[in-house]
């Protein structure tokens, strides 16, 4: 494979409220037994990429523990492997990455030591399944300097949170506006790029030299005319779990057979850390409909339209509706819960009534006791 991968997993996100107050977005639990970064990591491995750097900074503990065995994604190889990059304190460097370009620049040694011709830059919190080999083919055919994976977004309200592009008839990027108030096109950048490795090194050295640190505004926007940047239009399932609502909806998407089949059941597979939990147990009185359940769970109550992670207990007489319940949470007897997100190790005592809305699900912080 002539491409290496870089996953940017260093950004902070306040819109996820307490879900990301103590964890990186890339390590958010998704679809009953995965973490967000599993999707991009698996995409890279399944596309034949042998060498991947994950750049992390903010709340990195949960991510680091998830990535501690590279073998899961077949990246534990002697030729290549998984490199986890956190900011390091050096003689001319502060404690943090000042922006995405700076994050890449501070790890430029990874790029310089590689021999592969191309670099794929992705993010840790995008949920999708893609064969990057197809994108690389496109990139080479177009003789592009850079290819931006993008999507024709239909929902209007989404557009102003993306980089919006205007393309010519050949799909070459003519205009690039980051998070415009009045978007003039529906083509949004997904923040996934293919660049020639040597060109990326040059660009990074140049912008950092000029005291600028953001990859989107200082590289893409600025060089949009000078470089041959093409858009690769993707039309499959893709989700960015950047708000609570998005996070909630994305989990619920996996209850749909078509999405589950395409994303999880069909080859190539999304790999994640193996949990040594026993099978889920449904005792007398359990009524489970339209749910994803993981190992080690013990269900005695009613659960509907929900996504449960590992080792969740639902007590007798309890009713759980439209909820996301993470690892090791416990729901007491005769509780009624609707539209809530329970982080890990939340304990809800007996007879509680908790009702949120689909627009605003109630969040219970990790370890909360109610």
């Amino acid at each position, binding site marked *: 494979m002539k491409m290496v991968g870089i996953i940017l997993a260093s950004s902070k996100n306040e819109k996820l409220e307490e879900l990301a107050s103590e964890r990186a977005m890339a390590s958010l639990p998704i*679809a*009953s*037994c*995965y973490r967000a970064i599993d999707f991009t990591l698996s995409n890279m491995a399944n596309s034949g990429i042998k060498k991947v750097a994950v750049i992390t900074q903010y709340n990195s503990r949960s991510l680091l523990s998830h990535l501690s065995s590279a073998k899961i994604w077949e990246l534990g190889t002697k030729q290549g492997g998984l490199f986890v990059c956190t900011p390091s304190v050096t003689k001319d460097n502060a404690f943090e990455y000042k922006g995405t370009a700076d994050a890449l620049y501070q790890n430029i040694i990874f790029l310089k030591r590689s021999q592969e011709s191309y670099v794929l830059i992705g993010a840790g919190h995008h949920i999708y399944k893609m064969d990057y080999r197809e994108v690389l083919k496109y990139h080479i055919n177009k003789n592009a300097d850079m290819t931006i994976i993008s999507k024709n977004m239909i929902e209007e309200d989404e557009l102003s949170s993306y980089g919006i592009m205007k393309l010519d008839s050949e799909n070459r990027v003519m205009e690039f506006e980051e998070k415009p108030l009045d978007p003039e096109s529906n083509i949004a950048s997904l923040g996934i790029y293919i660049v020639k490795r040597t060109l990326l090194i040059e660009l990074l050295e140049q912008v950092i030299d000029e005291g600028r640190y953001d990859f989107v505004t200082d590289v893409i926007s600025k060089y949009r005319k000078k470089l041959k940047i093409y858009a690769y239009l993707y039309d499959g399932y893709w989700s960015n779990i950047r708000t609570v609502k998005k996070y909630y909806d994305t989990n619920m998407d*996996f*209850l749909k*057979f078509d999405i*589950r089949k395409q994303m*999880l*059941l069909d080859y190539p*597979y999304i*790999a*994640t*850390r*193996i*949990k*040594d939990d*026993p*099978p*889920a*147990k*449904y*005792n*007398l009185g*359990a*009524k*489970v*409909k*339209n*749910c*994803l*359940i*993981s*190992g*080690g769970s*013990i*269900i005695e109550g009613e659960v509907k339209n929900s*996504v449960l992670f590992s080792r969740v207990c639902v007590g007798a007489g309890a009713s759980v509706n439209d909820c996301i319940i993470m690892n090791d949470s416990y729901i007491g007897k005769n509780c009624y819960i609707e539209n809530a997100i329970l982080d890990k190790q939340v304990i809800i005592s007996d007879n509680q009534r908790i009702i949120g809305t689909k627009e605003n699900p109630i969040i219970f912080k990790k370890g909360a006791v109610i």
Partner: protein
Amino acid sequence: MKEMIGMLLAGGQGSRLGILTERTAKPAVLFAGKYRIIDFTLSNCINSGIDTVGVLTQYQPLKLNQHIGIGIPWELDRKNGGVMLLPPHIKAKEGSWYSGTADAIYQNMHYIEEYDPEFVIILSGDHIYKMDYSKMLDFHKEKNADVTIAVLEVPIKEASRFGIMNIDVNEKIIEFEEKPPEPKSNLVSMGVYIFSFKLLKEYLEKGHDLHDDSDFGKHIIPMLLEDEKELYAYKFKGYWQDVGTVESYWKTNMEMISIIPEFNLYEEFWKIYTNFDRQLPQYLGQDTHTDTCIISEGCEVDGIIKNSILSPNVIIEKGAKVTDSIIMSNCIIKENAVIDRCIVCEDCIIGSKSKIGFGENIVNKKHPKIYNTGITVIGERSIIPEMIVIGKNCVVHGETKKEDYKDAELPSGETLLMKEVKQ
């Protein structure tokens, strides 16, 4: 050098399990959904701090080999030690199959010598239990024993089916009786022995010289007693099951679905590890009805599951009904199929509207000793066409077609063996 290494006997067929072990050694048969029987002993080893285990394979080892691999799930992939598969092999002038339990160990003496252990624990891959072998070793040292044999108390009326240890007040074994008609005690050998290695070597060599089929129960233990060696019985208190028959296999599985099973897989302590393809969630659909069951990862369920166990990646289509049954990995139960009191082995497809396990309780005509309690078994990689009725105590194996059944029916007690589906 290791203090103690394990030698795990996993070559047995388990012939009383019938079609369940047709293509799979007993230790590799699925149990409690996602586990294979050998997982319990392997997990016991690593949980007890034994990091060097030789696994002696012989009968149908393919699945067992795939399952164990280099031992990653049990963290037995070690530079010094770890798990090692030990199949029978030929030597310069001789070489033969393993002819008995002691013979199998004797033939792998070089493997043990490489680690030069002080003690060797002999184990079997056939049993369901959680046991701390390090406590047994403490007992062995405390008693200054030559051999320690783990024993289990069973109801005295059942004792005559087993090898019985008669002991004195100090737990010293004074007599060993194999399946005595009138047992003097209810202490049954679990087939778990700790030997001091020097003595093991000496007696395995003796056993080899005297017997062609050198066996621990038949030859080695009686010889040791005759020579007045120090043999002690270590009383194990806890759950232990030998799932040796179709009925006991089914029953022991069913014990796992009771509210608080005597053998609890849900405790954090003493985890049981296994090897499985990949982590997946399970999906229970809008029309699912569950009633006392355990379901493994990757299952897609849209039917009725009652008192049953589903292994990973089973598909239960809409309207299908599974009661009192064990459905193994990758099976597809098509729409409106009904399965009652059956064991469906791995990779089977049950056609829509077929009914399995219905009819009179007539024992199997060909193998009355194996299939006689009403349980019908479908062998691995079988296909049952749609709208077929299969009775009780039946055995079906292979790709069956409509014309293989008379009047779309296989009456109770019948056997139907066809060619297996190619993978």
